[in-house]
């Protein structure tokens, strides 16, 4: 069974998904970060493939991608890095996130098979159109038992959400508001209404809320309305600030997960 499906079967709430950009801050950071996040029992690790023109990402993630490319990151190397660290990861499911053009240039068949071979459990490709996935790749994903997460936003109509639910496998990526990553700090009433509306649709796939989740408070709030949440930009900032990568990761994850009581005293 796909590791993601298994995860959501065994754990119904407070699922923590952390994003980082491969090859940042250093070219060989990928393995260290994966290992440390896994030791911290992060449920899902989303590995970003750095891209020159990341339209759906904000300035923090774009800058980390630019640095990673400057460091010399490329897809063959990334697959090697994942391949060598994967067997030592005990806990986490792995997601690969990137842009469709990267997949097209690598060769989609080769790319998805490579994902499977190195132990990737699911993909997020925000600019891959639904109908193109359905007609070109769905059969291959089924054959490889790879997960795929499509995005929904507060503007996505219910009929389209149902279609997205039908095609997603693993979880649905619920964009907290129509904004690029890292752009906002608080959860507002409009977002809460949206979370409630989605819950009422009784979808087959679990949901993770992403965009603007940066700390314990926003994580906890998101977890009230979905099975968990995704943190990206805030983690990249923590990596940038960390004197010691491992300790920085430990502290970040600990702070996200502190109980409400402890959070109040922080």
């Amino acid at each position: 069974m796909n590791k993601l499906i298994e995860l959501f079967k065994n754990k119904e709430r407070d699922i923590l998904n952390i994003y980082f950009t491969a090859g940042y801050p250093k070219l060989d950071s990928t393995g260290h970060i994966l290992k440390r996040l896994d030791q911290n029992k992060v449920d899902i690790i989303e590995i970003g493939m750095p891209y020159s023109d990341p339209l759906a990402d904000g300035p923090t993630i774009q800058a980390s991608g630019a640095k990673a490319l400057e460091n010399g990151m490329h897809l063959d190397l990334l697959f090697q890095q994942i391949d060598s660290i994967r067997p030592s990861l005990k806990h986490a499911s792995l997601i690969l996130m990137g842009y469709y053009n990267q997949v097209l240039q690598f060769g989609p068949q080769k790319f998805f098979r490579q994902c499977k071979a190195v132990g990737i459990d699911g993909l997020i490709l925000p600019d891959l159109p639904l109908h193109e996935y359905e007609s070109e790749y769905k059969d291959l994903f089924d054959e490889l038992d790879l997960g795929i997460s499509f995005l929904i936003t507060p503007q996505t109509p219910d009929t389209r959400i149902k279609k997205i639910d039908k095609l997603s496998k693993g979880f649905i990526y619920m964009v907290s508001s129509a904004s690029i990553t890292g752009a906002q700090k608080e959860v507002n009433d409009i977002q809460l209404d949206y979370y409630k509306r989605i819950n009422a649709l009784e979808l087959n796939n679990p949901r993770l809320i992403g965009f603007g989740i940066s700390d314990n408070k926003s994580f906890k709030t998101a977890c009230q309305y979905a099975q968990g949440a995704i943190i990206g930009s805030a983690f990249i900032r923590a990596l940038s600030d960390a004197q010691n990568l491992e300790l920085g990761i430990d502290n970040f994850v600990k702070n996200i997960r502190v109980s409400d009581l402890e959070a109040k005293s922080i």
Partner: protein
Amino acid sequence: MVKNKTIRIDKHGFYGKFGGAYIPEMLFGNVEELRLCYNEVINTSEFQMKFRSLLKDYVGRPSPLYFAERLSEKYKTQIYLKREDLNHTGAHKINNTIGQILMAKHLGKTRIIAETGAGQHGVATATVCALQGLECIVFMGEIDIKRQAPNVARMKMLGAEVRPATSGSKTLKDATNEAIRDWINNPSDTHYIIGSVVGPHPYPDMVAQFQSVISEEMKWQLQEQVGRDYPDYIIACVGGGSNAAGAYYHYLNEPTVKLVAVEAAGLGVETGESAATSVLGTEGIIHGSKTLLMQTKDGQIIEPYSLSAGLDYPGIGPMHAHLIQSGRASTYSVTDNEALAAALELTRLEGIIPALESAHAFASLKKQNFRDSDVIVVNLSGRGDKDLDTYTKFLNKHE
């Protein structure tokens, strides 16, 4: 004509295998809203009446089709210039912004964003926003802001905010990225006026339709002046390709008319400092559409180079990718220096200072073989006022 060779867009926004809408879900609502209404709106008599009347009385259309006698003599053929440089704001760009601002109003949008390279599209957008009283934000690469100072000043005077794009190459590609991001962040009140036949469907088709007034006029102007409503050649410069799309539009399915696309070779196609997408590009996705673009084998988009800010773009409109790959259009690459020399030549022979972008089209005349009797239309897409600094430097070096 063979039926399957007909050039047209399909319902998913593809010209052959190029086009489509490769966009994150956050843009889906906006793009879908536009897709559902644009064709219907464009064809209503109310819209057409407003659009036509602004093109006539505000832009100053029809733009003349001018027989360039001395230039024709030099190249031993019949050369006509489609004078888009005489439009209000100095280029073809205003045809599209007039159309799109009316579309934005129809959609009830109150805030307008745009990207710009040379600043012509930014000025044309700031102009129509002033005309219609809408808020206007123009994204422009930090480097372009420096090399196109007069247009920056014009935009500001027109009341627009010019927001520097500081990521990546700090030119047109990144200004476009920033504009798209802004649209993602402002999904309800904002319309994005794209300046070329690029971006996700329906933009390439919509912009081509607004620019098609160029070839629509060419038809009757040629009929009047030459006695037939088609030329043998239409020559236009191509960055994203909106002036070329407009000049070709009504002749796309008339194979006797040869379509010529002229790209910026920068320092030379082989030098690594170039923007000749049809030669250096491969199939991929940029700014939401599948087309030819300059990229590494890993799909990272390569920063192009051209002295001309308007042609300094790593992609090409999907319609052009299709025209070029199917053989319907032929292409030439013109270096910075060839374009500068052609600008000077046109100025001295005809008393017209062209935009550096348009000068690329003129530089291709040397590279082609025409018959005496051939009727050539060169789309003179813009005037050269904005490029005077560049031209002065060139003159000082060569005279």
